């Protein structure tokens, strides 16, 4: 645990952070344009997301006390730490230390920070929004973790870059997409749940609970939470790529895979209305869990895939 190992790790982590922010924000701008074309209209400029974020940061917001600000900083800090661990192509902050469970539970620090500061703002709508986000998290987390259990059991290593490396050995045939198709489907459904895209958007429902936890945010807190949302999306999608699509040998493949997955998720969300929170839970506890356990059974006992 010597110092320059940590410092180089931090530097690469910071590089991943900047890449994640720039790439994900511009991609979500492009996706807003694609969705615009979906509605037969032009849609904003591709750098509109940047302008939104910097505009929000430049405004003078309000604060409801120290827990309101501390929670936002804890949320952004936790999510940034998770992004810094993320292996992007060959840049990995800490070689074998990027354990899968770090992503899930360091992500939970971000969620806890945001939940704490949202409810700390004293607005009941935020409380309801946070409750919905947590119930949905229980919904999509369990099947996803069972599928990852299957992958880790088969590959013998829970380090994300290790899993990606194993999938890259034999070109496309060794991708988990090919070896475990059911697992990838369940992973994609849980990815939609994680992203909070349209069918599973109950916790930021603008019509019912006035954008849920984000009710009381304005000014720089809102800007920081928008940055956090971009980082969270980056984590979830690159997690999906590393687990199921075999990571990426060079940056171009990574970008192409990332784009396909994100735009596919956005277009699927355009075709759906918003589920009620009861439907979300019932949905996640019916098919995804059954398929996940089936897939895990195949891998662990049946040794297939």
């Amino acid at each position: 645990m010597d110092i320059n190992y940590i410092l180089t790790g931090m530097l690469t982590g910071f590089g991943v952070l900047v890449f994640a922010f720039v790439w994900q924000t511009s991609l979500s701008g492009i996706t807003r344009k694609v969705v615009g074309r979906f509605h037969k209209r032009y849609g904003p400029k591709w750098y509109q997301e940047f302008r939104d974020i910097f505009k929000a940061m430049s405004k003078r917001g309000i604060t409801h006390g120290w827990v309101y600000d501390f929670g936002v900083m804890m949320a952004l800090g936790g999510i940034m730490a998770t992004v810094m661990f993320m292996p992007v192509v060959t840049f990995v902050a800490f070689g074998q230390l990027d354990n899968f469970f770090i992503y899930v539970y360091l992500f939970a620090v971000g969620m806890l920070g945001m939940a704490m500061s949202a409810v700390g703002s004293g607005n009941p709508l935020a409380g309801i929004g946070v409750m919905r986000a947590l119930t949905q998290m229980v919904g999509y987390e369990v099947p996803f973790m069972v599928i990852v259990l299957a992958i880790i059991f088969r590959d013998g290593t829970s380090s994300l870059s290790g899993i990606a490396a194993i999938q890259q050995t034999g070109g496309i045939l060794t991708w988990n997409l090919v070896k475990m198709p059911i697992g990838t489907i369940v992973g994609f459904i849980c990815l939609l749940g994680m992203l909070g895209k349209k069918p599973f958007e109950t916790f930021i429902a603008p019509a019912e609970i006035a954008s849920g936890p984000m009710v009381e945010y304005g000014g720089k807190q809102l800007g920081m939470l928008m940055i956090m949302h971009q980082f969270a999306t980056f984590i979830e999608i690159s997690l999906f790529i590393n687990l199921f699509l075999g990571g990426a040998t060079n940056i171009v493949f990574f970008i192409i895979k990332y784009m396909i997955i994100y735009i596919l998720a956005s277009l699927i969300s355009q075709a759906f209305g918003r589920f009620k929170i009861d439907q979300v839970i019932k949905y996640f506890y019916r098919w995804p869990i059954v398929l996940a356990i089936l897939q895990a059974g195949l891998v662990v006992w049946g040794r297939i895939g």
Partner: protein
Amino acid sequence: MSKEIKKVEKPEKIKKGWDGISNYFRANSIWMLMYCTGCCAIELPQAMTSRYDMERLGMGPMATPRQADVILVTGYLSVKTLRRVIYAYEQMSEPKYLVAFGPCAINGGIYYDSHAVIKQLDQYLPIDIYIAGCMPKPEAVMNGFKDLIEMIKSKKATGWRKYRDNNAWYKANQIHALGEVRIKDEFHE
């Protein structure tokens, strides 16, 4: 009309530097508060959907005043709605803008003689831009938003500074017309 509180006509000098850059961002990404107060609000969906597409200008609807930049007073304002508009306006984060649709905000429009409709919104809230038309068509609405963007870029959209500097004057007018802004009665305890 409260005579003794003088209205400060010339707002203090706006500091340079950060404001220049942030004005570019503020101009190109205006979030509109989803609070349709009067009848002109029916023109907004047309401005949002495919033919006129407000999102091209970087504008989009936002659910709460905390997140919104511009509040649209669309059409006539009854006394009770004015209380709620003032409360929402004060909850917005600065810098905030206010756009008034139609003649009703200028001189009460066709409801000039009603006991419940205020005549001139300018007495109670600082207005940055008026959009003409008794229910302005979507072209007029888009033109108005374009002008608002120009005003923000050239630092002329300083309604919120006027409200902050002459708060006493505005408050006095509000109390004169509304009795009290925050109601506490059988339905609001």
